[in-house]
């Protein structure tokens, strides 16, 4: 059993600093175990969110040695424990205290997305191949690590004109749904700010559920925006054959939350 030094952020929205704690490392230990040991032995007032300890609740997101991670899924044997291990709160969101951040902005963004809008008298039977793509997006545990690492939110704090990768995934799950009738493309292009995304794939790299956020959600949405706004050939054929663009909001069907 060896002793590992941990440097953990202690503070709140007015400021704070790293404090060093020794942790007795054990085989199979994860960073969240280390934080719990610190709480038990040295700092009972250390604030941190956690719940399932199995990578499914998405509560324990933090920055371990500068990388956004779920603490419960980061084993100490993956880290260089000859050096102190740094644990900080997610940088993109305001700190409440210590490792707990205020992620409520995400829930406000979610409200701006037109919910699932099936047509009236929907036949709910669907083919598996119609919902395969959407099912990948349903794996999201809303840990918001993708929102945290996205440089548009993290570096440029663009929280008014950009909804972030988590909600681009949600829009993709609705836009690609075989029974949905709403058109969210105008929102995506303007208020959703999909043009801010320069597909550097950090959201995909940090996703603990290994959702192919960029390739399967954001790029297909970008292509749909191109269909609608940047493709003069498609626009010509739309005009030639009188094909109208899809309605902007739900087509009068009963809107339901997904």
């Amino acid at each position, binding site marked *: 059993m060896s002793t590992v030094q941990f440097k953990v952020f202690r503070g709140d*929205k007015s400021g704070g600093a790293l404090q060093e704690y020794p942790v007795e490392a054990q085989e199979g230990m994860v960073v969240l175990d280390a934080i719990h040991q610190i709480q038990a032995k040295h700092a009972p007032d250390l604030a941190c969110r956690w719940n399932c300890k199995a990578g499914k609740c998405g509560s324990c997101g933090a920055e371990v040695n500068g990388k956004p991670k779920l603490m419960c899924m980061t084993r100490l044997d993956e880290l260089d424990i000859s050096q102190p291990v740094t644990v900080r709160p997610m940088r993109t969101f305001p700190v409440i205290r210590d490792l707990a951040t205020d992620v409520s902005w995400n829930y406000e963004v979610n409200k701006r997305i037109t919910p699932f809008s099936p047509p009236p008298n929907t036949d709910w039977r669907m083919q598996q*191949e*119609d919902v395969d793509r959407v099912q990948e997006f349903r794996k999201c545990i809303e840990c918001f690590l993708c929102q945290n690492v996205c440089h548009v939110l993290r*570096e*440029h704090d663009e929280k008014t004109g950009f909804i972030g990768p988590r909600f681009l995934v949600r829009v993709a799950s609705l836009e690609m749904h075989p029974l949905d009738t709403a058109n969210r493309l105008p929102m995506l292009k303007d208020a959703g700010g999909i*043009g801010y995304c*320069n597909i550097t794939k950090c959201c995909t*790299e940090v996703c603990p559920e290994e959702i192919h956020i960029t390739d399967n959600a954001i790029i297909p949405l970008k*292509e749909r925006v191109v269909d609608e706004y940047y493709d003069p050939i498609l626009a010509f054929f739309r005009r030639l054959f009188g094909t109208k663009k899809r309605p902007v909001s739900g087509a009068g069907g009963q809107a339901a939350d997904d």
Partner: protein
Amino acid sequence: MNGKPETLAVGQLTERKDAWWLEPLLTVVVLVSFGIYALYVALVNRNYEWGPYLSPFYSPYIQASWWPFSPAFLVLWVPLGFRATCYYYRKAYYRAFFWDPPACAVSELRKSYSGERKFPFVLNNLHRFFWYLSVIVVAFLAYDAIKAFFWQDGFHVGVGTLVMVANVVLLGYYTFSCHAFRHLAGGCMDCMSQNKTRYGLWKWISHQNERHALWAWVSMFGVALTDVYIRLVATGHLTDLRIF
């Protein structure tokens, strides 16, 4: 104060302890080297063919009396546009050249950012049009590869023939694993079950698309190596082995 945690000291870009700088550095070295080589090949305007072999930098070969420069420039803007607007290369060059960001969770140097909403990066939305043109170029390269089997004295296979075939196969994988093609083939549909052919095509492209980055790099090296081989044979530095 906005309540966001201050995580970095002045001048510090990240707390990451791994070699995050290696990937952008390699990208810069490789892309700049390839760009310089491509410019040299286009400017030099000789030693680009030997026997039935034609360098991919000069294919399709366009002889225009009104064009005073190297014919390569009449072609190269198509693959350049295709790669510059490619979703994979965008990731690579935004990270390596613009540091937007250089790596995940690493700070950027510039503070203003408009993404792909304004000129010039809004032009990346034209990727599918470069894809259409690239399909034509790949078709010409396939024609060149077939022609490389037919010599003045009959049907033969040289090492150069295999090199040209390998080049067009790699370019084919890169071109047909493209995100824009994936969308046009079937990704734009919401009900895949309504068109099984397009669904099948979309599934095949999706499978190839998972390795799009690999095809992007390998096909780029393939183009350069094909040209190097033909150039060495044409200048007499290498003898083309006839296999058959």
